[in-house]
């Protein structure tokens, strides 16, 4: 029971004393010195689930997150590939059914309005060779009227 007192000099002298003081100091530091919170904990978990995370559990924990906004400008409009577009549709225009249906010689008389008229041979100024033109109605399509001129090439 008297070993510490009998070996006092041995405990506090030389290397043994230095080791004993270091042990006692370390014990006192752990007991009486406030421990700073653990810092610098890193967690990397990509594509995995994390359980019992030291970061996510506990109290008085402040988590910060850096937000990075990346802006990708739209790609510059380069030359577009040639796309075969259908030809524009022409507006459907109904065509009159104008046809030459005959020719004949008639007795003709000139009117006072400079127009020519068909008449009886007794009242005629002369004879005229004419062609007959019609705009006959059709059953299978729409029928329209038309303003027609006749070009003659002799």
């Amino acid at each position, binding site marked *: 029971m008297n070993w510490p007192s009998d070996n006092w000099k041995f405990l506090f002298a030389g290397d043994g004393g230095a080791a004993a003081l270091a042990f006692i100091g370390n014990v006192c530091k752990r007991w009486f010195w406030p421990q700073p919170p653990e810092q610098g904990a890193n967690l990397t978990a990509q594509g995995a689930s994390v359980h019992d995370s030291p970061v996510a559990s506990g109290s008085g924990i402040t988590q910060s997150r850096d937000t990075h906004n990346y802006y990708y400008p739209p790609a510059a409009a380069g030359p577009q590939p040639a796309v075969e577009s259908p030809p524009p549709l022409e507006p459907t*225009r109904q*065509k*009159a059914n*104008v*046809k*030459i*249906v005959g*020719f*004949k*010689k*008639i007795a*003709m008389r000139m009117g006072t*309005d*400079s*127009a*020519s*008229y*068909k008449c009886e041979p007794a009242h005629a*100024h*002369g*004879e*005229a*060779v*004419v*062609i*007959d*033109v*019609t*705009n*006959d*109605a059709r059953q299978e399509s729409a*029928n*329209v*009227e*038309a*303003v*027609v*001129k*006749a*070009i*003659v*090439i*002799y």
Partner: protein
Amino acid sequence: MRGTAPWLTSTSDVIRFRVDDLHSAVLGIAMNKGLYVPVVRRVTFGPGVVGNPVDLNSLNCESSTVTVRLTNDNTGEFYCEARFEIVTNPASISALQ
């Protein structure tokens, strides 16, 4: 010779064809022992005043071939074309293929 043929009963160089209408175009006029080709001209005498005088062109030959082409006066749409032979004395007309 090239021109616009007149239409019977019309004082204009064009005529309006309503549906089922029939009109006659004059290709030649025989009088005074000769055949004349009537051609209508469109003449503007003033603002909004248009006249259609008819010129009679003598056809100094025994016969002649004439091509008739019918078109739309507003749109130029082609309707039909035909060829005829006209004999001057006596006046007669026949179709050519």
